């Protein structure tokens, strides 16, 4: 397969970037999207140029490192698929593929296609944890929990923090990410203890990072590689209101 790749090149955070076009021949349809970029980089390096920088780690769809905006869709044209699990057979032979980094004020470009997603980390630092002493695992049956709730919490926990929700949102909002991280704790007994403070702190941090506001277009759900539901955003809103209404003054 032959492709024309239009890729965003940017030297560093300070410089202005631009698109560069690369023709690429003899791409195997079995290659993953990242393998295709490796193949391109090999050729660029052989020509003595700077290879295209992109983020990747596990290449099996669970680490959340990879994330490219491909032809107007975060993670490309396939639903429930990360960039690393996307294969070249999903594209048409001879197609022009436009590859851009995530675009958001809270995700500044570091280089080429790599963005700084530490804003997500800071949201987690604000409250994305439970305060429990480490040690041996507690007896699991001492916390009764329904299968339905356990499964739902696990659905939320499937978030890999890739940032596709922000990239797919016309408002560049991080609501789905924050909601997933809040919901994974809010529904289960261990997380309920600090639920109110957690939602308060995490939402505050999310706003401070400069993400946009949610207008319920649900583009995030459509392009989330883990299929996380916007139902969690409603849950977060519910938690947020109840935290505001029921918040108690510290003793």
């Amino acid at each position, binding site marked *: 397969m032959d492709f024309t790749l239009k890729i965003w090149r940017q030297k560093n955070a300070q410089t202005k970037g631009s698109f560069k076009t690369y023709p690429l021949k003899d791409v195997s349809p079995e290659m993953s999207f990242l393998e295709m970029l490796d193949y391109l980089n090999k050729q660029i390096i052989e020509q003595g140029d700077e290879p295209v920088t992109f983020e990747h780690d596990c290449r099996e769809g669970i680490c959340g490192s990879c994330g490219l905006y491909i032809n107007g869709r975060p993670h490309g044209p396939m639903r429930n698929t990360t960039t690393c699990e996307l294969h070249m057979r999903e594209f048409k032979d001879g197609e022009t593929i436009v590859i*851009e980094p995530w675009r958001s*004020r809270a995700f500044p470009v570091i280089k080429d296609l790599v963005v700084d997603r530490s804003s997500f980390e800071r949201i987690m630092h604000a409250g994305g944890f439970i305060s429990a002493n480490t040690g041996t695992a507690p007896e699991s049956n001492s916390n009764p929990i329904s299968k339905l709730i356990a499964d739902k919490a696990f659905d939320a926990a499937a978030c890999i923090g890739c940032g596709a929700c922000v990239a*797919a949102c016309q*408002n560049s909002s991080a609501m789905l990410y924050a909601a997933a991280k809040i919901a994974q704790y809010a529904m289960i007994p261990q997380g309920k203890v600090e639920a109110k403070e957690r939602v308060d702190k995490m939402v505050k941090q999310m706003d401070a990072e400069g993400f*946009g506001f949610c207008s319920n277009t649900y583009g995030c759900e459509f392009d989330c590689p883990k299929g996380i539901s916007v139902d969690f955003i409603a849950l977060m809103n519910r938690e947020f209101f109840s935290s505001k209404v029921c918040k108690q003054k510290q003793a």
Partner: protein
Amino acid sequence: MALAGIFLMLFLIFHLATNLLMLARDDGEAFSEAVKFLTENPVVKIMEYFLFAGFLIHIILGLLLKLQNYMARPVKYHKSLQTETSTFSRFMFHTGVIILIFLIIHLINFFFVRLGWVPIPGEAGEVANKHDFYSMAQIWFKNPWYSAIYLVSFVFLGFHLKHAFQSAFQSLGLNHTKYTPVIKVIGTIYAIAISVGFAIIPVYFYFFH
């Protein structure tokens, strides 16, 4: 945003219910009775201030939201978003601006006349006094341009409401696997009922009166 929106959606129901009295074949007697009651009742007078506040809050928050969201993506995508979203949801700001322009025209046509800010339309004697909304409606909607402006605005109002109804529930966290699909259906019915309901009035005056 959602709370102000819900308040405005409730107002639209009352407004439509009053307007539909114009269709009674009594030369606007029932409608004028309703207008008289609404302009004189002290509770309604107080609610009028809440209504203005509701509109202002909704409009100002909408503008702030748009501004914030615009700034949240300083570098735009080269290839525009292909993510599948509902058209109604994507153009809430645009439909909102159209409705705001319509609202201003609508206030000039009727409400400002009542306040005395705008002279009474039509020739002398055509409109009995500045509370005679029935005759004013007759004058405005005999004019094809005004009827057209109103009708087009109601279409966009319908688009706005189609997304607004279910979106308000989502924003308030009122979401349920069983009831959310029902809310979405009710929202669609509400949007169609409101826009068609309001559209009946100019059509009625233009063609049948």
